[in-house]
């Protein structure tokens, strides 16, 4: 009795699966495809599906503009600074939360959860005013400061899980063998945490690299744009948009993110359900 519906269920599932695959992948494919097409192929009512006659002209155009190179530098500086500071701060905080019991621990954890839910739009007006007063608008330090507060809660939350995952008994054993508590921590626990630190750092990188809203608020000057800002202004100027160039730019921005994402994704899924981050 169950046989017939089972088979049709399997066929339906497979057909819908293929459709879902096509819808999910098509924009990504179209981005890469268009990035290789010449202007006359882009501006053709009949689309070119496979870039047979394609070349790298669009990429050359992108790299030839100062704006892209500037934005790339900007993005790299902000991202590196953000991650370095956030990882260092988050690491010690994660150790405190998972290796000690102290008054205020639970409130700290609750605060982390609540902060992660705050929409950036809810605070960017006063963050703008604050950075203006501190004379930090349009600076790498200013943007990094707000980015650190953006990635820190999630970073602490995730690292906490990694620290707690290293059994305390290992440290105790090392202390029995004559290590001090600090030595035990750095010789035993820290090396075991390295993969967790890398994964969390990569995740912070993706967030800072992709971030648009705060960059828009803090970096008002054209020469201080990060990559997402640069890309967004590419489209709004006029209607004679250079789609080939935009797609080349989008591909360039997406490549590091996609590669990193695929590497850390498996590790972070658990953290995502319990942490909550989205661009």
């Amino acid at each position: 009795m169950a046989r017939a519906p089972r088979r049709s269920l399997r066929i339906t599932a497979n057909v819908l699966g293929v459709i879902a695959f096509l819808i999910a992948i098509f924009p990504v494919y179209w981005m890469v495809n268009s990035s290789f097409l010449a202007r006359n192929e882009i501006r053709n009512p009949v689309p070119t599906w496979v870039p047979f006659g394609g070349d790298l002209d669009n990429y050359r155009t992108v790299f030839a503009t100062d704006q892209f190179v500037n934005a790339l530098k900007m993005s790299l500086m902000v991202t590196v600074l953000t991650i370095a500071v956030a990882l260092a701060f988050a690491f010690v905080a994660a150790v405190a939360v998972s290796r000690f019991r102290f008054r205020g621990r639970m409130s700290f954890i609750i605060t982390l959860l609540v902060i992660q839910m705050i929409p950036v739009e809810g605070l960017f007006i006063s963050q703008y005013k604050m950075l203006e007063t501190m004379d930090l608008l349009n600076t790498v330090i200013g943007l990094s400061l707000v980015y650190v507060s953006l990635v820190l809660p999630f970073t602490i939350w995730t690292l906490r899980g990694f620290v707690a995952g290293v059994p305390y008994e290992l440290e105790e054993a090392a202390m029995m063998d004559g290590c001090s508590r600090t030595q035990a921590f750095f010789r035993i626990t820290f090396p075991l945490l390295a993969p967790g630190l890398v994964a969390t750092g990569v995740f912070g990188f993706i967030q800072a690299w992709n971030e648009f809203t705060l960059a828009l608020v803090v970096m008002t000057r054209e020469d201080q744009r990060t990559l997402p800002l640069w890309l967004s202004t590419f489209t709004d100027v006029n209607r004679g948009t250079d789609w080939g160039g935009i797609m080349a730019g989008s591909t360039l921005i997406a490549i590091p993110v996609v590669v990193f994402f695929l590497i850390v994704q498996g590790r972070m899924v658990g953290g995502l359900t319990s942490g909550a981050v989205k661009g």
Partner: protein
Amino acid sequence: MSDRAPRRRRTPLPYALLLPAVAALALALGYPLVRQVVLSFQDFGLAQQFGQPPTWIGVDNYRDLITDPYLWRVTLRSLAFCLVNAAVTMAIGVGLALLMRHMAKGVRVLVQTGLLLAWAMPVVASLTVWQWLFDTQYGVINYLLTELGFDFVGHPWLLRPLSFFFVATVIVVWMSVPFVAFTVYAALTQVSEDMVEAAEIDGAGALQRLRHVVLPAIRPVLLVVGLLQVIWDLRVFTQIFILQQAGGSTRDTNLLGTYIYRLGIGGGEFGMAAAVAIFMLALTVILTAPYVRAMLKQERESL
């Protein structure tokens, strides 16, 4: 688990370890929050921006806002957009996760690869691609619809508000489904096969098994994921802002986030913008409370 940890002796060490993080959060989030509350009770417009001292006006900003029909329109629009997007995302994501169990292995790997790529795409890059797909003149979507026999030659998707929000919904759902599908699928793999089989032996049909065995087992995950979608979709900014730049009337397509931005950074009305932002924070707190409660419960159980 983490509480199995040592050291009940009083020591200032944990506080010292927390200090950098707490200081950073207090500076970049805490201080602005306080300042924003202050700002929302002040008349702070362009004149103040150019040096005049701000004046205290009590709840005037809030009164102006609450009596402004536009704020309510934007709020209702944001809520409607948020609920529709969250519902569509959940329906497609959960549906895919359920179907994934019945797919051939090859197809499932294919679906997961596609979803992973869509998930990994940077927001702004996805937005430019979707704009290009929906392009009036040379967009593939107009081309395909025309080939299918509809007249979509030169159709401007972003011009009318409803159509604008349709495009925004397609983009938001495309970006959000992978997270839902993967998380729910992971939860489904934890559902005991024995229970499902037992129900089958007892004569339960596929739909009955779904309703009475599978869905109840993954209910907690569904709740948290659904709540996250609502919270995330209430604060869409990038998608709306960039689509607004590409065309469409700003006034008719503003959601809360873009409204605050245009009011404050765009228009210099910092006092009013701060009041709307506080309003949005309040709305978020209301929506977030059940999520935080669920997470804390999970947290306590894992201890």
